[in-house]
């Protein structure tokens, strides 16, 4: 049985996860949390309310934007969507993550040349 991962273990990567979810279209807090749970197959444990500080920070930094819409329930609901700046940030973060992942794989596998080569190539792309 795989261990549950606490949100804190992800550090700043939670921002990337949220950006990745919003890449597929506008969404609101509860839906974002549900998508996060579904995509992580329940392995990510987090207080659902703790997603909002991250969303608000992303909004402050201009990586996402939001507007209020009246939902079917009649309540006003805040929908978030990715900005062009957020889209660029997500692309850069993904490239860095891929490079880091390859690097870890290469080192943990014992440093075989092909993995190192792949990691170097990706790192060069991530940090030109």
């Amino acid at each position, binding site marked *: 049985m795989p261990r549950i991962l606490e949100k804190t273990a992800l550090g700043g990567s939670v921002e990337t996860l949220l950006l990745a979810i919003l890449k597929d279209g506008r969404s*609101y*807090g*509860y839906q974002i*949390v549900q998508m996060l749970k579904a995509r992580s197959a329940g392995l990510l444990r*987090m*207080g*659902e*309310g*703790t997603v*909002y*500080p991250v969303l*608000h*920070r992303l909004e*402050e930094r201009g990586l996402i934007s939001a507007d209020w819409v009246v*939902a079917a*329930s009649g*309540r*006003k*609901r*805040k929908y978030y969507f990715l900005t062009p700046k957020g889209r660029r940030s997500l692309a850069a973060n993904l490239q860095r993550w891929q490079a880091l992942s390859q690097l870890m794989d290469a080192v943990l596998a014992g440093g075989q040349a092909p993995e190192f080569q792949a990691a170097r190539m990706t790192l060069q792309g991530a940090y030109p």
Partner: protein
Amino acid sequence: MSQMLEDYLTRVMVYANLPPSHASEVRQELRDHLLEKIKDLKAQGLPEEDAVYQAINAHGHPRVVGYGLRPRFPLVDIRSQGTARGVIAIGPKAVGIFAVGGTAIGVFACGGLALGLVAFGGLGAALLFAFCGMGAAPVAYGGVAVGLTAAGGAACGAAAVGGFAVGLLAEGGRALSAYNQQNAPELLKDLLNLWGNNNHERLGWVTMSLVALLLAVQAVAGVANRRERRRLQQTDPWLQE
């Protein structure tokens, strides 16, 4: 039942301490989340009371959610737990221009462990001046002081003065010095003279001034902290959990 929900949101917002205009939007957003969650849980067959309880439980502790929602670097940030970040930061761990806390990091840091441009505290390191039980800084003053210029009970530095002083140029009750006053380079003499020609009197004056400043800062921090705790306790009877 919605009363439980509103009580929870009130607790979150007390910790968040947001401006009223922004607070109502945030509260509305969190309420929408919780109501959606309750609706889903009820659809799964849970009685309303259990659904509300589970939704609140899943949302997280009000302190964690509330503190997370605070502006990242407000003018004043006072926290009973966690890291306070603000122009004036007060808390167990404080980071700010003026930081007061168990661990304080700031331009002016005051705390058990103080790191800053100017540091006051039990253990301190500073880029400019440290006045600490144990202090390390270009200009350090304290029980044990290490720096370019150090003064204190035990002082170690290029120019040191104190009860036990070690340095290129040292002066005090017991001094280990590479130079004496006659043949020391002028720079070292100037450094030592930072503490004045009449060292004992000058050091006493500096000590009293810094202690007074330290007490004043701690008093202001104490009053601010007590007010904050009272504000939290009025809305959060479970604060002592």
